[in-house]
Structures are given as structure tokens and as C-alpha cells.
């Protein structure tokens, strides 16, 4: 199994829109790319939109080879499970 750790930080405004996002990743090149793309794409979306994100668009954009598809899956997991998202949704 390969190890991939990523953290996202997002700035949310009063209307639940994401105004800025940052990421940190420990992982292979594909995982860094996948988390970078995700952090770019969430800018401007609302928190609830992000919760419906799907990893296939990410994988397609990066043209990830089959052996690296899990990188985009894990990224999707991370952005959804993100504590920041959960907190923002509550607020």
C-alpha cells in the first residue's frame, strides 16, 4: 500500500462560499497533483457543492494512469471528510 497524507485548509465566507484554499501533501507526484487540482477547483464553490465532488473529473483532468487512480480517490475523501468542511457547514 502506498502512503498519502493530505490536509486541506479552506477559507469560507458568510454565504458559505470558499474564498481560498491551501493544501499540504505527503505522497507521490500524482497525489500532490491531485490535491493541488482539488484545492484549485474548490475555490468559488459552496461548502455543500464540495461535498458532492467526484474524483473522476480530477483523474481525467490529470490523465492519471490506472495505477494512480487511488490518488484522486483519496483526495476526494480528504476534501469531504475535512474537519474544516464539517465545521463550516455547521457554522
Amino acid at each position, binding site marked *: *500500500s502506498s*502512503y498519502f497524507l493530505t490536509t486541506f485548509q479552506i477559507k469560507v465566507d458568510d454565504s458559505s462560499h470558499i474564498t481560498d484554499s491551501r493544501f499540504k501533501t*505527503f505522497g507521490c507526484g500524482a497525489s500532490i497533483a491531485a490535491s493541488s487540482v482539488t484545492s484549485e477547483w474548490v475555490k468559488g464553490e459552496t461548502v455543500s457543492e464540495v461535498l458532492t465532488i467526484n474524483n473522476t473529473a480530477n483523474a481525467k483532468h490529470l490523465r492519471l494512469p490506472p495505477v494512480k487512480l*487511488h490518488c484522486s480517490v483519496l483526495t476526494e475523501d480528504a476534501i469531504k471528510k475535512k474537519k474544516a468542511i464539517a465545521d463550516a457547514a455547521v457554522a
Partner: protein
Amino acid sequence: MASKAIFSTIRRSLTKPRGGAVSRGHHLSTSAATASESYAGDEHAIVMKGVRISGRPLYLDMQSTTPLDPRVFDAMNASSIYDYGNPHSRTHLYGWEAENAVEVARIQVAKLIGASPKEIVFLSGATEANNTVVKGVMHFYKDKKRHVITTQTEHKCVLDSCRHLQQEGFEVTYLPVKTDGLVDLEMLRDSIRPDTGLVSVMAVNNEIGVVQPMEEIGRICKEHKIPFHTDAAQAIGKIPVDVEKWNVSFMSMSGHKIYGPKGVGAMYVRRRPRVRLEPLMNGGGQERGLRSGTLATQQVVGFGVACELAMKEMEYDEKWIKRLQERLLNGVREKLDGVVVNGSLESRYAGNLNLSFAYVEGESLLMGLKEVAVSSGSACTSASLEPSYVLRALGVDEDMAHTSIRFGIGRFTTEEEIDKAVELTVKQVDKLREMSPLYEMVKDGIDIKNIQWSQH
């Protein structure tokens, strides 16, 4: 100083790219030579497989293969043109000359390892030699001997041959190694059974460079009268090898690891006491019946010359390489913390430096080090997504096993290359650590061992 300059010039001009993929408007020098210039010169850039680099990378991957020594090339060149006869043709001058050339090479190889030329069999490489010995010995003695002992850190070809034997019904003990990569001699002793037919332990490990206690293992095997095979592909010409001192019955050798050509290797098969093995290649009975097939004279000649040069220059090479290894390790340690050397630093071949950089993943580091040709033990770089089995056997933590880089230093490596490699490595590691949540956690005092990794 002058001779080093000559060598690096020869190497540079001999390793000029051939083939259409690369633009050849300019004499492409290595990144070390362009070190003093900026990378702005786009005319020098190489684009291949979607990667753009400013010049040819520094070659620091000596364990995977070595460049051809120009002197070996000279010998092979002449031999290719003139020694075209079949060395097994008994009836005319062309055969006799080719045979002579082969016999000269045989003596050169034998001298390097302290054997008699009659005990050297030429074949296509260490992989073939390993296959021939492991399978051939056990097949020969299959009625009485059903057990093989080897280590978990052997080269894939030995492990795979053993797996093949297991499928045939033999039993194999894969000895674990200690955290420094060395075999535990007591464990070896304990695993010996009355039906053990072969012990196979590589002399120098290709991934981590550790040198096994060969004399001790040889002594144990002699005590129990078990043939001792060693894969010495990474050892010959680099550390002193003596088949008598080590008490080996079989040894595998490779040409392209000692600045010789690819596609050739040799197998040492002891004559006294005699050990038998079933050949893998049947045919006209060449090479004492152990490996049929016409020898590639110029490959064999090249291998012989490489061995002779290695014997002459071993001491000098060792001093030079040790110096560069220290320069590399100290250079990196000065600027970075969390640098771990994988495998024993004392019982080690200096030219192999396998380092783990904590909190940084190996494949992403390699991607950023496109200007240094090195290799990694990380999962992502191997096709199977499994981290290197050698590092696993060392007991390296999962997160560290993913971060290893193997630097290979050789006869022709220069100080400038080492300095440039240090600079590039430090830069990349710093950049990736900035991006790494693990590093951030560590700096904040969180114990990263407590991370719950979820399975996918």
C-alpha cells in the same frame, strides 16, 4: 587532476546521445558542467517523456548499471572486428584466435576472484548464473536434498528461482536480516537441515550496499558440507573477493556492474571439492557442458578486460569513492535533518548510499530530482505499489520505506557531480517538506506514529 579531467571528457563525449529523440545542435554536457551557468539556456534543454530538463542528468545510479570504461570499449571494438571466428571451431585459425581471446578473458576473471580459469563459465549475466546455480544444483541433487536457505534481501532473480523451486516441491527458508541488513549467523546455523542442498547469500546488496559476513557464512557451510552460492554481481572488482577465503562453491558475476558490457557474466563453479549442477542450456556441450551456446567473443573479452582493470584499480577506486561518499553524506547532513542511512554504515560498499529523508515521499522526490539519475525504494516507483522488499526486511518503518533514495557512486563520478547532487537534493527535500503535513505535525510536536492510516 589532469587524468580525472581526461576521464570525464572521454565519458562525456562517449555518452553523447545517439538517436533522434534529442536535439544535437550543441555538445550536450552534464548538469555539473552547466552548474556555473544559469539554466536559462533553452537550447540545451532536453524534452523526453513529457519531462523537460536543462541538460543530461548526473549519473548516480551505479548499482543499476555502469558506463563502459573506455579501455574496455577499445578492447571490445578491436575484438568485434578481428575475433569474429566461432571460439568453438576447432579446425581453423579463426576459431583458434577467438578461442584464445576467450581464454585470456577467462584468466582475467579467475584472477579477480582467486579461482582457477578452469572454474569459470561464461554466460549472459548474473541473472542467468543465479538461475543456473539455484535450479541446477537442486535439480541435480533432488533425490537427497530438498531444502534451500537464502535471505529475504536477495536479488529478485534468486528469490524468483527459489519460488520456482517451491512450486516444484522444494522447501526454502528465507532468512530475515537484522536492522543493519546483515544476516544473523545463529539463525543461519539453526535453519540448516540434513537435507539442505544450497545456501545462497549475496555478497553486496544491490539496494542498500551492505556487505555480508562472507567468511563466517562460508565457515558454517563448510562445517555442514553444504554448497555455498553467492551472487557477487555488486561485489567483484569493488571489494576483495576470494573464493578460497569465502569457501564459496558457486559465484555469480555480471559484466555491466564493473564498467564492462551488458549481456555477459560468469559463473564460478568449484572443482575441488567437486559440486555438480544440471545445466539450464542444453546443446553442444560448451563451457564444460554447463552452458551450451556460442560465446559472444567480444562481450567476453570486454568482461575480461573490465575484471583486469578492476583488479588493478580497486584500491584507488575505493579511496576515491569513499571520499565522494563522505562528501555526499556530510553535504546532505549539513543542510538537512531527518536523514537516515539504510543499512550498516560500517559493513558497506562505499559506492552505495541509500538514504531515507523523513517526511518526504520517494517518488515525488525522484520526480523533482530529474537532473540527478538515481533510484528509489519507494512503492510508487515499482510497478506493484509495494515498497522495496529489502527495506521492509530491514524493518524500516512504512513511512520511511517510502522515502528512500539510492545514490550510486562510481569510478568516474566527479566531485562537482556530488556537490551538484547535494545541492539539488537539499533543494527538493526542503521544498517537499514545506508541502508536507507530516513535517508540519512533527514541528508542532505531534507524534506521527499515532496517525491512523485508513486502508484503500
